[in-house]
């Protein structure tokens, strides 16, 4: 009887500690696996032959940041349309589609991106931009002769497009839920002052939904920077900085999945490679943790700012 009671008292703590234990276990075992071999000066550098990570870190941010910007702008547009402007029956069709999109496995995006979107964009969009928008920094091809290569479509630009599409559902649905949570009488107060729907959306509803907007941004960024398979399939994997938007490069995540095979196999330097990939994983983990913490802080600050608490 006594034993049973003690068990009843302690089990919630045991369960509650699982996430903490898991986080610590991942960090600790990865650190051990990496043997802390490379965390020197060259590790933070651009020299990939000397196990520098800066190319991959840059690649990750070069894909995740633009994808996040696009997904936030388009997502906010969809969220406002669905909550404010669309007739109810249309919103009732659109909203579940967005939720459905959020659940598509990334390998599906990868295959689709590689076999269908890449040749389409390569031929119809990137070839055109390479000729007509060459004046924009980054849109000029390295050589005029590289047009056939651009026509294949894979590279940094395609990775950004696919990433945008992948995180768009999550940013959209988080912002949509935040806008739906704006109280009806707050809306009516704005309209009762003679404001139009757009003015109330812009000045009242979106500021009221600010926490949801920040939440969408941080969650979307976390997904974008950690996305692996789909990016690997469309980025035209190369261990170098891209010289333009059509060029191939690597993100931290895509490098890990792309090198895991060679690192595991015969390759005499394989041990070093494995260490390096573990280290890269730790860096990726720390970046996502930092983003998470920053997001929480930002959301709390927004709350203070709005409510003055």
């Amino acid at each position, binding site marked *: 009887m006594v034993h049973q009671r003690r068990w009843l008292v302690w089990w919630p703590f045991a369960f509650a500690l699982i996430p903490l234990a898991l986080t610590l276990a991942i960090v600790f075992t990865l650190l051990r696996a990496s043997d802390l071999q490379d965390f020197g000066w060259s590790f933070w550098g651009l020299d990939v032959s000397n196990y520098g990570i800066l190319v991959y870190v840059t690649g990750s941010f070069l894909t995740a940041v633009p994808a996040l910007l696009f997904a936030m702008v388009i997502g906010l547009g969809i969220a406002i349309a669905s909550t404010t402007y669309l007739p109810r029956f249309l919103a009732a069709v659109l909203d579940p589609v967005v939720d459905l999109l959020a659940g598509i496995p990334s390998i599906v995006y990868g295959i689709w991106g590689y076999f269908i979107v890449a040749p389409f964009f390569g031929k119809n969009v990137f070839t055109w931009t390479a000729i007509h928008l060459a004046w924009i920094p980054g849109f000029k091809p390295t050589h005029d002769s590289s047009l056939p290569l651009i026509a294949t479509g894979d590279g940094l630009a395609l990775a950004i497009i696919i990433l945008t599409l992948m995180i768009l559902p999550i940013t959209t649905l988080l912002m949509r839920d935040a806008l739906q949570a704006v*109280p009806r009488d*707050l809306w009516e*107060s704005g309209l*009762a002052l*003679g404001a*139009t729907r757009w003015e109330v959306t812009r000045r009242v509803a979106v500021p009221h939904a600010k926490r949801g907007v920040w939440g969408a941004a941080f969650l979307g960024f976390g997904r974008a920077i950690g996305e692996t398979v789909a990016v690997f399939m469309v980025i035209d994997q190369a261990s170098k900085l891209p010289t333009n938007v059509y060029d191939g490069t690597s993100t931290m995540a895509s490098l890990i999945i792309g090198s895991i095979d060679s690192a595991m196999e015969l390759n005499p330097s394989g041990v070093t490679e494995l260490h390096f990939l573990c280290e890269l994983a730790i860096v990726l983990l720390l970046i996502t943790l930092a983003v998470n913490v920053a997001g929480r802080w930002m959301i709390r600050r927004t709350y203070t*700012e709005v409510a003055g608490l």
Partner: protein
Amino acid sequence: MSAIPAAPSDVVVAVQDLTVTAAAKTLIDHLSLDFHARSLTAVVGPSGCGKTTFVRTLNRMTELTRGLNVEGAVRYLGQNIYDPSVNPVVVRRRMGMVFQRPTVFPMSIFENAAFGLRIVGAPEEEVDAAVTEALQRAGLWEEVKEELDRPALSLSGGQQQRLCIARALAVRPRVLLLDEPTSALDPAATQRVEATLQGLKEEIVLVLVTHNVGQAARISDRIAFLHSGKLVEVGPTADILERPRVKLTEQFITGRYA
């Protein structure tokens, strides 16, 4: 216009044979009622009697609810606001509205009061002067004048509700519609809001929806008693309270309404 007899000069809003239906249900049933300048009319009645629906027809807020059908006329200074040529945005700027819950916006105290002016692009000096005046008229100025940049949500509930009144006043409406404005407030805050309203009735037309007969007795000049969407009785507050002509009114004001 010519077919309708000219309204007495102090009638600001004239409701004529108003009927509001939703699907098969009649919410307001052939209701006619005038609202005069410099008066506070309390619209009272049991829950579900249609008083909120009624007040929302006065500035076309009913249009924001799907499936409501409005017939009859609401004349603002002679003009039927349900005329197809009338822009509801203009109507709402002439007839301000305050809701049951304080509905301050997520912005500073100053910007809340300035909201209605900002959306029409009023020049800065004008906004400054109008905000100060509106906050004074709403009886909030002394409490907030040092901290106009603070978030409005940091105010107490009663202060928030007076800020909502100030926000509505800042665009200089002729009519202020109040839908149970103290139902979410404690007695002290209620008393402050009531004092504010009493000060305002010298300047504009006030229509106060309330389920609280005591509140109507304290501050209204006239009481209109609604029941099942019909106007049962309307008259000077003292008359309605002391000599109701209809049994139903008497039952309601004496709290014996079942």
